[in-house]
């Protein structure tokens, strides 16, 4: 059987970075080819060459053993290549059907044939087992379902090659199961898929073959059955990582942050607290209200009742600046929209929240600033030749590290992290975990939202589990395991399950 797609000796240089260095790779029909590697290893770049966004400097791309020659997004699409990007590209204000056919509407003469599109959309959605009506506005869907719409969109273009670039970074376990069911179905139809992910547990479940990348080079390609977790981690990080979750447990101090009976649109009667020296995990399904709670607590969104106390002091509503002033740092969920100024440099982004600490006399101390930023660039393993690089040109995981650096530089004492390690490679994850451990050792308190159970279980002193906008329970580190957390996450009513699978 011929290869569906082949990547022959491809190189791609960006200024100062050899993003891809003589990489060869192939994809068979009906295969899930997993690609892993550290942040900035060149994974997304490789996929963007397949989809025609970048042209390679050297090497060629073959489709059905025929060289493709010039490639553009349009040409790639005509050949049945579809991308599900790291960041979703659907339009929230349009309906499901409109999104699926955006740019390639079904026409009758010069008019758009809505009826035909509705029908086709329904078929497509049914074929991947998604129960959403084509007329629903996409903004009313969960992220998981939005992703399904992207897949339906890919199918509507008769995709034969689908690239998934970190599709599960914002999904919970139940939703990932759903995605995998669809991928399995696609595999049966002979669709070939590349699958990039930093969540290593899942690749053994879904992959047929695996390729490990480092510094733009291919380290290895092998059938997944011949690999194990240890080998993969070592391949990615270039070193053994014995224990990812390093924790020392310092003596606990005063209560730093406390939410008392907080009520808002998407959550009710939330009580939680974090002490100095503690990491608090906030677990639950996507949509259970975790992000909404911390956003309200930090003053981003309003809340209708209850109190937020910092070191016993009541905080005003809707005033994030005040909380920042009191030493609270907030790492938001959506790094591009809420975390970064993309057209500014790493340096300008990293210091923005710590200006007052770095330059108490308001005049910028350039040397001190650069030294501070360089320090964190090293600590977090930010892969960029200089701190002047515009954030826009960094890889997804590297951008996430810049957002982290921004908050670590503030030397805050209370950290609220919403999915801090989203899109970050295993090696860097373990350095971030030790940084977090260091922080609480110095008397900080951390609230961490995470959809990755191993991370919550491995790092937290205590875990609050949310379900349907309420705290369903609080579990101590000693008693916490997969089962207890998941049970609580699904506790409340059966409606909460229904919602997550909706």
């Amino acid at each position, binding site marked *: 059987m011929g290869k569906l797609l082949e990547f022959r000796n491809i190189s791609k*240089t*960006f*200024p*100062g*970075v050899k993003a891809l260095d003589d990489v060869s790779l192939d994809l068979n029909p009906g295969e899930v080819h997993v690609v892993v590697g550290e942040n900035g290893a060149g994974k997304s770049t490789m996929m963007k060459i397949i989809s025609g966004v970048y042209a390679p400097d050297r090497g060629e791309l073959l489709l059905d053993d025929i060289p493709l020659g010039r490639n553009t997004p349009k040409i790639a699409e005509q050949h049945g290549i579809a991308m599900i990007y790291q960041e979703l590209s659907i339009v929230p204000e349009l309906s499901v059907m409109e999104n699926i056919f955006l740019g390639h509407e079904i026409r009758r003469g010069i008019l758009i044939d809505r009826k035909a599109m509705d029908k086709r959309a329904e078929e497509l959605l049914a074929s991947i087992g998604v129960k959403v009506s084509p007329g629903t506005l996409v903004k009313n869907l969960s992220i998981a379902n939005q992703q399904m719409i992207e897949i339906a969109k890919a199918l509507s273009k008769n995709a034969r090659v689908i690239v998934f670039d970190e599709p599960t970074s914002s999904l919970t376990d139940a939703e990932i199961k759903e995605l995998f069911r669809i991928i399995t179905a696609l595999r049966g139809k002979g669709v070939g898929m590349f699958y990039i992910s930093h969540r290593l547990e899942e690749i053994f479940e879904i992959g047929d073959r695996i390729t490990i990348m480092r510094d733009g080079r291919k380290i290895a390609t092998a059938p997944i059955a011949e690999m194990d977790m240890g080998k993969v981690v070592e391949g990615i990080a270039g070193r053994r990582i014995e224990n990812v979750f390093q924790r020392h447990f310092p003596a606990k101090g005063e209560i730093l942050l406390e939410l008392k009976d907080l009520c808002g649109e998407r959550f009710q009667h939330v009580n939680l607290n974090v002490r100095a020296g503690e990491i608090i995990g906030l677990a639950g399904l996507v949509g259970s209200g975790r992000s909404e709670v911390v956003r309200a607590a930090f003053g*981003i969104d309003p809340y209708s009742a209850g109190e937020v106390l910092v070191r016993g002091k009541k905080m005003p509503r809707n005033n*994030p*600046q005040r*909380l*920042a*002033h009191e030493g609270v740092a*907030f790492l*938001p969920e959506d790094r591009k*929209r*809420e*975390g*970064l*100024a*993309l*057209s*500014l440099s790493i340096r*300008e982004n990293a*210091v*923005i*929240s710590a*200006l*007052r600490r770095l*330059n108490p006399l*308001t*005049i*910028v101390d350039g040397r001190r600033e650069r030294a501070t930023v360089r320090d964190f660039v090293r600590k977090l393993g930010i892969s960029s*030749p*200089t701190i*002047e*690089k*515009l954030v*826009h*040109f960094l890889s997804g995981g590297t951008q996430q590290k810049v957002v982290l650096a*921004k908050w670590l530089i*503030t030397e805050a004492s209370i950290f609220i992290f919403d999915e801090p390690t989203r899109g970050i490679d295993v090696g860097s994850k373990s350095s971030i975990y030790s940084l977090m451990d260091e922080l609480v050792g110095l008397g900080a308190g951390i609230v961490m939202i995470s959809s990755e159970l191993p991370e919550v279980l491995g790092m937290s002193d205590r875990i609050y589990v949310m379900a349907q906008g309420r705290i369903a329970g609080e579990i101590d580190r000693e008693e916490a395991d997969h089962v207890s957390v998941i049970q609580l996450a699904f506790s409340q009513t059966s409606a909460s399950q229904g919602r997550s699978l909706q």
Partner: protein
Amino acid sequence: MTQSPLVLKRAIKAVTDFSSLFILLAVLAFFTAITAAAGDQYLTLSRISVILNQACFLTVIGIAQALALLTGGINLSIGSVMALTTVLWGRMLVGNAPDAVHYIIPVLLVVGTGMLIGLVNGLLITKLGMPPFIATFATMYACRGLAWLALGKKVIYNLNGDFRYLGTGVVARLDGFSLTVPMFVVLILLVATSFMLRRTNFGRQVYFTGTNAIAARFSGIRTDRVLIWVYVLSTGLAAFAGLLYGARLNSFEPGMAVMAPFDAITVALIGGIAMSGGYGSIWGILCGSIIVSIIYNGMNTLSIASELQTLVMGVLIIFAVAFNQFLIKRNMELRNELDERTASR
């Protein structure tokens, strides 16, 4: 792209950094050629001095507008504020009466009133959540109306000589070239604003807010405070521009400088400030104002009708903005490349 030599890239980067300098040279070349074709010399010392002197006022309103544009906003109230503030306090600047207060007092009152109107602009935008376009559009009308109410169809003229020195004073004369007081005033203003934007915490916050206001709020920047200050400074500068303007014309009147906010936008756009916020340098404003000044001056020398001048200005804006947009993109890429190269050395 990556193969071209470093020196060349440095040169391109310099051009894209000061895209407006490039336009400036082109415009100069154009008028020099045309005048030369008519057997004349374009760049004489006296003409340069006239052009620069005229550019001074444009620079002040250009900076005022640029501050607002950098945050992603706009200030349409510039011209009306010039009129209202000077009409309100202008009487204190009339004549050389011995009992008159020192002219510095009305000057401070004018600028102070401007800043107060700026505070109103800022509050409308931040506390009432009005888009800057609408908020300053409203104050544009309100201030113009108040100016007419305050003075009616009269004109304040025959201004205090000491005060006029601010707008017309000549420090030194070299052949036909006059070094004037406004040139020094504007130079100080440019250095100060540039320092504020590039080297202070406040300036950093202005750029960050202009690039991504949501992320700025999440980063703990007091975005409301930043915006209010920007409009206070911008509108205060507008009032100051009114003083320069009046000093040169030796009069204040309610109908003055109607086109000022738009001239200011022209200057800022040609000077390389991005309407979308967060991009541009204050020194570009200097180029922008000299360019606009040259064009008006050049067209007057060629005795082109004013209707046609307006048309030419429109076309020029289209070209300048398209050109700048292209250069901004290229500049970002180059900034990326060059810093890497220099670092890897």
